[in-house]
């Protein structure tokens, strides 16, 4: 092995740069083997002198413990640069292998301002070109709603965001996280409570943004035919009749609706309706095409087909669109379509991650790289500590009120049984895949089970706890008992309800009281959902009884409850 000899010779001479140059020229796995064959101090000395590019390539081939130590042998800034240079797939594999405690620490070291958010690559112009001016730019926009008792509930924390030309940007987030609100602020439909949205550098309110929106519910006018629907925005721009018809037919052709011009929307299937929605949006040749969960109302196969056709239009540049901004709760959809993914956190919403996906289109659902991205997003979504501990929490600031995920207790029980049958531990996206459930439907159940300490979930994995196992194996009566215990131990709202009711001599309170309490922390709609979930759990756990007729809660009393609850509901 002449190279190994040369290496030894250079090492003996102490020519670190020479060695580094040599390593940099080797294939990464070979260089890794060579590197590991020398003593640890030498390894670190060598790794430090490698150029960032080479260091990233080589580190990616090493076992995580070696890579972790070597990465830390470089100064913090350099370490970040090295990690940033790693191929996304390799990077994800590396993170995946780290034990949880280390991972957490490491993420923090990679730290602000980029955060784990930018483990991939900061969204800037590729290849060092000067940055392209964004079409839409949001500066510190936020949204809050007035509470009934005065004061404000913030639903979207200050967000900076720009939509650059040439990209498909996907905004991912759990339901109720404010995705749609953000989309409406960016498209000029709703003004932000604070901050500013700019259209080509001008304030949105002064300009006439040329955008199109595709809605989840299609939002077609049922009394107009397909072609009349597509003509609506053209008519609004004063396009005369003949040209209008001509342009509308052309767009209809491009989305595969030739021959359906005279049909009414209700005669069409869901997929066809969404094509009309797309055609209507494309008719005005918008610069930015907003899509608000465009495929959610469709069945799996239709959605898949439409996604493919959308990509075809986009890649063949058949659409005169600069960028697409897609709101979705479907992780695979985001990874399949987007060049840039934003992940939104909840209550209040803020951008938790913002990364590029550089895999070439069309993407393969089953490629390892694809799966790694999907897994990565799952990790982000199931790691609440990432958003719950922003570094700049002012001392004395109120910690956020515990938010109940909206899962019904029957679904929680079913999930625990399934998890137990699968050996007690699994990858979340595999569970979701098996159940054919959207992550959006599954996550609240997992979060609820975790809150009740029935499972532990971390980084996309979920594992059943002893309590969870006991619950899954118990009979109806014992289950109720176990649920009662864990609910009172873990759920703030139920604790508060329980102690408030117990302290009253008649053991009764108006529900309004708790509604007011929750409205200090949540919007009106969210408050209702919190109450609904709490009642669902609290009634099942035998903590309380609810009488809808007079909107009253009482402490559960086994001796009377059977009659009165039947009458009350």
């Amino acid at each position, binding site marked *: 092995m002449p190279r190994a000899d040369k290496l030894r010779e250079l090492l003996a001479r102490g020519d670190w740069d020479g060695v580094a140059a040599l390593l940099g020229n080797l294939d990464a796995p070979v260089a890794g083997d060579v590197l590991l064959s020398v003593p640890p101090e030498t390894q670190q000395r060598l790794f430090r002198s490698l150029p960032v590019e080479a260091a990233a390539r080589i580190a990616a081939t090493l076992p995580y413990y070696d890579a972790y130590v070597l990465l830390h042998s470089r100064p913090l800034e350099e370490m970040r640069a090295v990690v940033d240079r790693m191929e996304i797939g390799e990077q994800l594999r590396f993170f995946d292998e780290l034990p949880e405690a280390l991972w957490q620490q490491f993420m923090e070291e990679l730290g602000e301002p980029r955060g784990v958010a930018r483990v991939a690559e900061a969204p800037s112009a590729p290849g060092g070109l000067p940055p392209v001016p964004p079409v839409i730019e949001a500066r510190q926009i936020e949204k809050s709603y007035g509470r009934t008792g005065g004061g404000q509930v913030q639903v979207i924390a200050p967000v900076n965001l720009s939509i650059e030309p040439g990209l498909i940007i996907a905004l991912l987030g759990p339901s109720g996280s404010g995705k749609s609100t953000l989309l409406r602020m960016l498209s000029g439909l709703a003004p932000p409570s604070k901050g500013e949205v700019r259209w080509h550098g001008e304030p949105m309110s002064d300009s006439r943004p040329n955008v199109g929106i595709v809605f989840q519910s299609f939002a077609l*006018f*049922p009394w107009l035919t397909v072609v009349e629907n597509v003509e*609506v925005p053209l*008519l*609004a721009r004063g396009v005369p009749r003949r040209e209008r018809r001509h342009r509308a037919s052309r767009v209809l052709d491009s989305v595969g609706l030739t021959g359906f011009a005279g049909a009414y*929307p*209700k005669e069409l299937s869901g997929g066809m309706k969404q094509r009309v929605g797309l055609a209507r949006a494309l008719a005005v040749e918008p610069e930015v095409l907003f899509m608000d969960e465009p495929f959610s109302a469709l069945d799996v196969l239709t959605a898949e087909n439409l996604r493919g056709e959308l990509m075809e239009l986009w890649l063949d540049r058949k659409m005169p669109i600069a960028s697409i901004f897609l709101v979705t709760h479907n992780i695979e959809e985001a990874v399949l379509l987007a060049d840039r993914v934003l992940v939104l956190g909840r209550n209040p919403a803020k951008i938790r991650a913002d990364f590029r996906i550089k895999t070439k289109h069309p993407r393969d659902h089953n490629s390892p790289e694809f799966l790694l991205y999907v897994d990565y997003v799952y990790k982000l979504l199931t790691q609440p500590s990432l958003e719950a501990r922003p570094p700049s929490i002012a001392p004395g600031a109120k910690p956020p009120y515990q938010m109940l995920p909206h899962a019904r207790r029957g679904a929680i029980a079913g999930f625990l049984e399934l998890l137990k049958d699968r050996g007690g531990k699994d990858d979340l996206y595999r569970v979701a895949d098996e159940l054919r459930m959207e992550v959006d439907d599954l996550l609240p159940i997992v979060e609820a089970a975790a809150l009740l300490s029935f499972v532990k979930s971390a980084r996309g994995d979920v594992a059943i706890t002893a309590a969870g196992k006991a619950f899954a194996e118990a009979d109806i009566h014992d289950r109720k008992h176990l649920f009662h215990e864990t609910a009172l131990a873990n759920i703030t709202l139920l604790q508060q309800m329980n102690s408030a009711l117990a302290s009253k001599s008649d053991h009764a309170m108006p529900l309004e009281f708790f509604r007011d309490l929750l409205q200090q922390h949540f919007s009106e709609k969210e408050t209702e959902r919190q109450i609904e979930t709490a009642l669902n759990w609290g009634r099942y756990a035998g903590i309380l009884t609810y009488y809808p007729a007079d909107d009253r809660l009482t402490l559960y009393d086994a001796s009377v409850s059977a009659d009165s609850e039947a009458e009350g509901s």
Partner: protein
Amino acid sequence: MTRYWAGPVGTQPDIDLSPAALPKYALFSVARIAIAYAISLAVTVVYAYIAAHNARAERVMIPLLDTLQSIPVLSFLPPVMVAMVGLFPARQVGVELGSILLIFTGQVWNMTFSVYSSIKNIPRELREAAEVYRLSWWQQLLQLELPYSAIGLVWNSMMSVAGGWFFLMACEMFVLGNRDLRLPGLGSYLQTAANAGDTRAIVWGLAAMIAVIVLLDQLIWRPVIAWSEKFKFEQVEAFHTPRSPVLDLVRHSRLLSLAGRVSVGPAREALTLHFAKTRASGRARIRSGLAKWVARALAAAGAAAMVYAVARMVMGLGAASRAGFAEIFVGAGATFLRVELVLLLAALWTIPAGVYIGLRPRLAAIAQPVAQIAASVPATALFPIVLLGLIRLGGGLGIGSIVLLLLGTQWYLLFNIIAGASAIPTDLKEVCDVYRLNRAGRWRKLLLPGIFPFLITGFVTASGGAWNASIVAEYFRFHGRTFSTTGLGAVISRATDRGDFAVLLGATVTMAVVVVTVNRLVWRRLYALASTRFRLEV
């Protein structure tokens, strides 16, 4: 017709009782209804549009609408007629305009309310689509707001026109002080026939009345309902859609479609393009400044008018004597009891009958349209005939008024109950069979709760109708004699006869207050209960 309108007021125009005159009278009556409806439609769109788009105006306009809806229209009859005859003292057109104005006030409010709430309830995403593509206000009205309101408007128009017949029959022939005002029409024909005791003429008149109603139903309402199907806001095509041969005929007529293409089409196109361009060029903003001043001036004028009206009302009330107030008070109590008794009597026969029919789909298919026709024959047209019978039997208006009120109100109950009973799901009926519930148990556990929401809807309509009808049912001039019984309606009618405007005003306000109060205290609560606890969700 023009010559007739411009002619002098006929204090005693002769109503020709020969059947050959009926088509002419029917035409006159239909013309009045049609004109009043056209005005109602225009007012509805303007009023509802402003109320739905201007939050400040909305705060005044909607409570006002709510109040106007509960004012008994028939007590407007004397002041409106006096004003109109005063405006055109020597012309028949004054009386005609008065009757049209009355019908208009009777039918406009529920139409307005329907359009207003439709516009307010347009789904968010449709609104957003309109906004993001920057539709002009005109295009939004034409392509979004009116189509979305169409179905509710059509149903409410049908109800309004039926109500219009009710008032028309009452105001085609009435006495104002010493003047006996008559308008040639079906209503005056029937009254004259009953007055003369001419049975043959009565039968002819009734036949003509029913023929007109059936014809209107077939030629106007069926086609309109079938046409309005396309405005149904549903994403899936309905399994069963209403059809109308007349509509098919109109749709396939080349002449009509050509006429549409050369007249309506280009006009609409030109207008829409015009508004699109105004919007694009930003001229709308300048004009909205002017519009703001106009709106302010209008609002100020409206407020002044209202203050003036209230002041006049208070002054008018002050003029009423103590005895007048006592009369109003006693009358209100009597009419209240009478109305509740009528509702009870109506419920007693319609609940079993309605449920019986509703549970048998084949029978319901026959009975439903018959009940609809029966309900749309205005009770006021039947009053003289019923009275004639009562007088021959020797009964007074005490019982007579109850029969008359029953005539007007029972139908609402009946077809609501039929609809409710036929909506009870089969599996619930089967549960009752499986567990062998006896008759009483079945009524208590399934049938009554099942029809409850429909029953309440029927009661609300029937109750309001009964109060209004009491004005004509409790006091009647017939054969030169005056029949009356104790009641608020009688107080109103008598005050009209005597020209005692203070009592008339007091009684009218009292009736409005009672109707609103009963609605708020009883029906709304029951309605809320019906729509939460007793809703059968499928």
